[in-house]
């Protein structure tokens, strides 16, 4: 594309004109990864993402720890979405050990998971503001997410790393008076994020920087196997909370937000719409939740898996479908744990989207993929 665009500008031949540029790992527009781009003038000719700067070997270490001590480990990939990243593992272990979860625990899980999704998305939105040079867009979401962090702190005792979900339920019951506080905070939160439309999504600068950049068509979104908001922004109606309801999502009314455009603007708007949906789900769950009852089935210490069993469980996390593949043998430790994470699956779209794009659009396209490098590297 670029070859035709700049026919006579440079004196060199085309091959000599192409420059290789390392973006990251120390770069405000890269996060914890390196993106190697080849540019011809302003246009990106090729792009090669180089993740792995936070590869900590979670999957290997999970083979040395038992089913319960794995919990704090497997939430570390996304500490601000720690309930969701732990969810498929906990569901899988429950299936392996054959545990029935109390009804109230399921609702507590749904509430915690939706609150976490909002916390994750607000952080993501704040960093998107940094990437676009929009200071208000950093300050507002970063400040408003503290409201929900307060709620999670009340519920679990920790700001970000909760380790709240355990096989058999959740660690603690809700604190006294939590329902009222939660309802009030969530209502305020929803009112607050509705104001974002005027400042961000109708902002001509943001529209100019994100509209029609990095367009991913519906066919390509399916072919590349993308997931989550990237997929839904390209017009595919696929949300695991609706398509494969886990825990009590089948009793709640979940609406999926789909946009047709498939550009960075749509990819940045879908998570915002999802947050409002999360508020709806939390309100429904608070209403339908059994008012009392057990929230945890106590396990035998050091539970052992079946002789040979494989489980693949998946949930909808803040970044899309998050699968956990567990192979168990008759030991207290799992034989193999594999996390199939949304970030890693969406990464494949990056070289594809950046081809022919301007270098200045790289940060906005990259972060709109809803990518969290720590999770992708595991």
């Amino acid at each position, binding site marked *: 594309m670029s070859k035709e665009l700049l026919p006579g500008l440079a004196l060199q031949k085309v091959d000599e004109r192409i420059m290789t540029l390392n973006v990251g790992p120390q770069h405000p527009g890269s996060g914890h990864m390196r993106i190697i781009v080849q540019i011809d003038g302003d246009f990106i000719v090729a792009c090669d993402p180089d993740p792995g700067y936070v590869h900590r070997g979670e999957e290997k270490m999970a083979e040395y720890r038992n089913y319960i001590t794995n919990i704090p480990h497997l939430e570390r990939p996304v500490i601000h979405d720690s309930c969701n990243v732990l969810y498929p593992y906990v569901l899988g272990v429950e299936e392996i050990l054959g545990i029935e979860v109390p009804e109230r625990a399921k609702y507590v899980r749904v509430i915690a998971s939706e609150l976490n999704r909002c916390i994750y998305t607000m952080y993501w939105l704040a960093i998107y503001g940094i990437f676009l040079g929009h200071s208000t867009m950093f300050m507002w979401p970063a400040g408003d997410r503290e409201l929900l962090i307060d709620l999670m702190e009340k519920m679990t005792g920790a700001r970000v790393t909760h380790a709240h979900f355990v096989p058999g339920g959740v660690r603690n019951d809700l604190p006294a008076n939590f329902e009222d506080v939660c309802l009030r905070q969530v209502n305020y939160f929803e009112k607050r994020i509705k104001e974002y439309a005027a400042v961000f999504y109708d902002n001509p600068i943001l529209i100019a920087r994100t509209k029609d950049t990095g367009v991913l068509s519906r066919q390509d979104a399916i072919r590349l196997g993308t997931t989550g908001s990237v997929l839904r922004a390209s017009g595919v109606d*696929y949300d695991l909370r609706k398509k494969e309801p886990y825990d009590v999502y089948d009793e709640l009314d979940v609406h999926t937000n789909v946009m047709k455009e498939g550009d960075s603007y749509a990819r940045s708007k879908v998570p915002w719409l999802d947050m409002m949906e999360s508020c709806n789900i939390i309100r429904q769950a608070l209403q339908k939740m059994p008012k009392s009852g057990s929230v945890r089935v106590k396990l*035998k210490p050091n539970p052992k898996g079946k002789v040979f069993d*494989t489980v693949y469980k998946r949930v909808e996390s803040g970044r899309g479908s998050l699968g956990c593949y567990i192979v168990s043998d008759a030991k207290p430790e799992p034989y193999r744990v594999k996390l199939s994470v949304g970030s890693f699956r969406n990464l494949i779209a990056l070289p594809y989207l950046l081809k022919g794009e301007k270098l200045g659009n790289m940060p906005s396209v990259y972060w709109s993929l809803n990518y969290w490098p720590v999770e992708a590297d595991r």
Partner: protein
Amino acid sequence: MSSDSENEQIETTLEEKPVSAKTSPAPAKEIELPKFEKGIADKIVEKFGPKVKVAFVKPDRVGINVGKEDVTEVAEFLRDVLNFDHAESVSGVDYPNDKEIEVVYHLGSYTDSTLARQILVLATRAQREENPIPGNDATKLPSLREIFYSVEFHEREVFEMLGVYFQGHPDNRRLLLPEDWADLPPLRKDFAIKGR
């Protein structure tokens, strides 16, 4: 530990489980299989016969084992006829006792709404070498990248983590590990981590 009565309850439920686990490896005939999933498994068996072995049929999950010679053919059938259009995850599992490394593809479908809940678990096995030289030994499998484009990075990850070379993959480079990694592929069972 605090409440003994609850513990006892769980112990009883847990001890019942291995009994059913013992019966399940031989394809469970007594237990009623979910109908839709059974239909998918039957279609595959009908087409390929003895080449394909149905590993398990669970709610929403169908597992099939295929030899590495037939995996491309089976994958093409899954994509073109059964409408599985993307791979969610590719996991490698090391079985040193069988001298094999298993590569598991979890396939899903976005286009076919009846398959939205389904995951097809396609497993194939490669020979395992005692002293691996990643890329230059017999641990090789045909790549499915031409059939499912989405496996590109996943297969690169399996290559560096277990040393399975994917023939036909355009880009079998290192992805997550440091550039100077000279040890065994880390997810093999004979690679021990510090102090273990």
